[in-house]
């Protein structure tokens, strides 16, 4: 709303800077989109736009040879990521609420442990996990990926949510109780509506982390039973062994980007910050 007060020069500079950022961020995406529409002979012709726009690559992964590989991977990715996100958000909501609202021994310990887990390099635990999973039968199963994904998503979820809950004034809950609400009513009618944006933000971050994972995906799976998309892309083959599967990979990359984009657009309105503004003075 301050735009009207900016001078024309400043405004122009903002536009230039903004466009530069957008080009920098979106150019690789545009390249992949363009690749996915190219014919195999076009791939290395150093042209940005395809000479012929073809759907071959999409046909290949959705109904053609790579169909089995891709569709099962897509199903695995969606399922595993959603389940991991759901569990992590539910657990993190309870944990963060307790951390923000209650005073109990070991509170700092939980937060520092969460942080320690988050900074632990994934690659260093993947080998022992591989052995363990094979021994207890979790190798190449959905739970076998969901559990390690929780170790990635829980720490960040707990941290973001507890920071978010801390911003909600404690007094709102007390005010609701004085106004005649039970603890549950105060939570449902006051805290939940205020916490929703934070929970959605956390859910989206968790989903991205699980969705984008490659190391666990490729190490802890061996078949279509549980292999997620990022890992499956590595198994794509061309029409012959002399042909690179670049086009198919590009098409698959575009397809897996779409749910993420839809998700963000869908919940964009939910992620508006500053909803708590106006609750209290200042």
């Amino acid at each position, binding site marked *: 709303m301050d735009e009207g007060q900016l001078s024309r020069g400043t405004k122009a500079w903002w536009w230039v800077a903004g466009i530069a950022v957008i080009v920098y961020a979106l150019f690789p995406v545009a390249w992949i989109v363009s690749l996915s529409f190219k014919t195999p002979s076009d791939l290395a012709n150093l042209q940005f736009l395809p000479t012929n726009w073809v759907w071959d690559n999409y046909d290949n992964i959705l109904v053609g040879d790579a169909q089995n590989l891709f569709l099962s991977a897509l199903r695995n990715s969606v399922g595993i990521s959603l389940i991991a996100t759901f569990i992590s958000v539910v657990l993190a909501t309870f944990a963060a609420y307790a951390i923000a609202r209650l005073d109990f021994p070991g509170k700092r310990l939980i937060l520092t442990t969460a942080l320690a887990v988050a900074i632990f390099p994934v690659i260093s635990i993947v080998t022992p996990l591989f052995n363990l999973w094979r021994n207890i039968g979790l190798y190449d199963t959905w739970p076998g990926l969901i559990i390690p994904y929780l170790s990635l998503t829980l720490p960040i979820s707990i941290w973001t949510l507890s920071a978010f809950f801390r911003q909600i*004034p404690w*007094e*709102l809950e*007390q*005010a*609701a*109780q*004085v*106004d*005649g*609400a*039970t603890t549950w*009513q105060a939570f449902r*009618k*006051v805290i939940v*509506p*205020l916490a929703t944006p934070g929970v959605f933000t956390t859910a989206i971050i968790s989903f991205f982390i699980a969705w984008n994972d490659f190391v666990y995906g490729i190490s802890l799976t061996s078949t279509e039973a549980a292999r997620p998309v990022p890992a499956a892309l590595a198994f794509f083959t061309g029409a012959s062994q002399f042909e690179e599967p670049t086009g198919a990979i590009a098409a698959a990359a575009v397809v897996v980007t779409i749910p993420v984009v839809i998700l963000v657009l869908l919940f964009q309105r939910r992620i508006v910050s*500053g*909803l*708590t*503004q*106006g*609750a*209290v*003075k*200042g």
Partner: protein
Amino acid sequence: MAAITLKDINKTYGDGFRAVQDVNLEIADGEFVILVGPSGCGKSTLLRMIVGLEDITSGEMFIGGQRVNEKAPRDRNLSMVFQNYALYPHLTVYENIAFPLRLSKTPDKEVDERVRRAADLLELNEHLERKPANLSGGQRQRVAMGRAIVREAQAFLFDEPLSNLDAKLRGQMRTEISRLQKRLGITTVYVTHDQVEAMTLGDRVVVLRRGVVQQVATPRELYENPVNLFVAGFIGSPPMNFISATVVGGRLHTPFGEWTLPESRSADLSGREVVLIGARPEAFEDASIVSDTVRDHGVVFDATIDVTEWLGNEQYAYVPYEAPEDIRAQLAELERELDSEALRTQLVVALDASSRIPEGTPASLWLDLRRVHVFDPETGENLTVKAMAQRGEATPEPARGNGGPPAEPGDSPAEPAAP
């Protein structure tokens, strides 16, 4: 509407800190009671114990004759205005005010009626559809009040409701709260650290210090007959002056001369060597403009005024003086407790605006001895008030935590012997 009774109320925190100690208080139905004291005196804790947001460590609390110690806040049927308003940011002003009614499943028609009535009263009609974030501080404050009055609560509780407003708005809202309370006639407990709010709003004022009730009295009684140094120093702006004096045969030797107290203010000085004399700024006057009829009731002394502040309707003059070290230390300690800082021992003297005493020259000042108090420097007790009580001239209410019901008009304490 209900009376609130506190019996031997104590609050001890987990670390052993006693925030509230043995508070006894009877708040009559419809009475406006102020809890006042410097920060950390336990006034907010006491209020939160009444509303049920803090547990009562020991003692009993009755609201409308019913014991409420074990009741949850929602079962006490009280309404509260929080210091930071605690409005629900996701609801409109209308729904904020309607919130308590929605919780009690009031029919929509009645909700609408009562919300509109409250909004009328607080002039919030044009803002009903807005969100709290878009309101000014004063408007938010009124919404918080609206939420409190929309329900037929047994009592209103205010926790420093005006401290977030600027000075001008605070004055307006103060009048507004007073008007609203008189109109609705609901028992009100109001916490503040601002003594102007305490003096102007309350039927009775409870002065707290470190969790202990010092005095429960009408604002006038507090001002004219403070029971101890703390109350005397806390109530009044500029504060009461304290002058050290040595007792020599019933006469008082002060840095400003030798004074003898009149019969009406005399106190039991036997066995005491040092006392503190308390005199409010307005007990002093420029000796040259004191009329002859009253001159004999006071003493005239010479003092050097170093600064004067002329305010139009009156002026304040500052007279620095030397006090013995131990008395100085004690006064500094008192100041610290009152959230201020004494840089030097000085008299603050209120002079008539027409007085033309120049700064930096010795001047002749007059002190009305009928309006001074004598304090015990060790215990802080007001010996004058004590002596008056013993003589039966006035009946200041007992010092420690015994707030009786408000005085009936018939038996109000006799005015101290001021003309």
